[in-house]
């Protein structure tokens, strides 16, 4: 199925969760946050948040800045 990650179309297996996506993208353990339809999903809920076709996610990570 197709989902959107940071406005880019991404392929994901049907029935996968946010945690599965994080593994697929090899996200670091620290300094990352994920929002589904502009709502932040706490890391503790990644494992039971199922993704559906067309879902839109924002994933951010730490960057240098003042």
């Amino acid at each position, binding site marked *: 199925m197709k989902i959107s990650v940071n406005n880019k179309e991404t392929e994901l297996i049907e029935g996968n969760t946010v945690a599965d996506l994080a593994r697929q993208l090899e996200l670091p353990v620290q*300094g990352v*946050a994920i929002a589904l339809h502009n709502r932040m999903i706490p890391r503790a809920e990644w494992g039971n948040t199922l993704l559906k076709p067309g879902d839109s996610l924002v994933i951010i990570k730490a960057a240098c800045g003042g």
Partner: protein
Amino acid sequence: MKKLIIAGKEFGSRLFLGTGKFNSNEMMEKAILASGTEMVTVAMKRIELNDKEDDMLKHIVHPHIQLLPNTSGVRTAEEAVFAAQMAREAFGTNWLKLEIHPDPRYLLPDSTETLKATEELVKLGFVVLPYCQADPTLCKRLEEAGAATVMPLAAPIGTNKGLQTRDFLRIIIEQSNVPVVVDAGIGAPSHAAEAMEMGAAACLVNTAIAVAGNPEEMAVAFKEAVIAGRRAYEAGLGIQTTSFEASASSPLTAFLN
């Protein structure tokens, strides 16, 4: 010297560092450690898929350092609240440098949205340190809204122009019941020392250190300037007279004749 306390947390250093514009993460880490800072800002960006770049976070995470995520890139209070929630999740801290500057040319903070966001974020349990205009009235309003500090600008971000807002900073410091952190525009250790002599609680410095010929040495120079300025403030500066006449510091009695 008195310890700086923000939201009940004690800081041994009154110098805060930004992490932008360094040539490398290794240089940034050296400057952070050399500065003695205990508060370091960090920004957020959208990940690029398949981007395996070096993790900057490992260079700034140290047991003595409080991470201060910023909301750079947001244009409204609503976006700031979303960014704050993402930051709290990503960095495991409810401390936040709130910055809302919709205009990329001057990067000047939007006072209306900053006040609105501060009110909402305080209710959501964040420790809010708002970057703001050097506006004494606004700073009082931010304090009333529950801001942990106010962080008025000395000059526009990255300009190194020093205390262009000097007179307003003096009023803000005189009126404030929360620590006043002078943020943005500090370009030389002498600027930081002057802000501290005026009674600022701390200075936030980034560009002046990051783009210096030797950032590590410049970090030390700022550390010493902030300490000197604070020490002078606590010691009580002599009054500057408006007279052009000298005031002798040696006896004026006849000596040679």
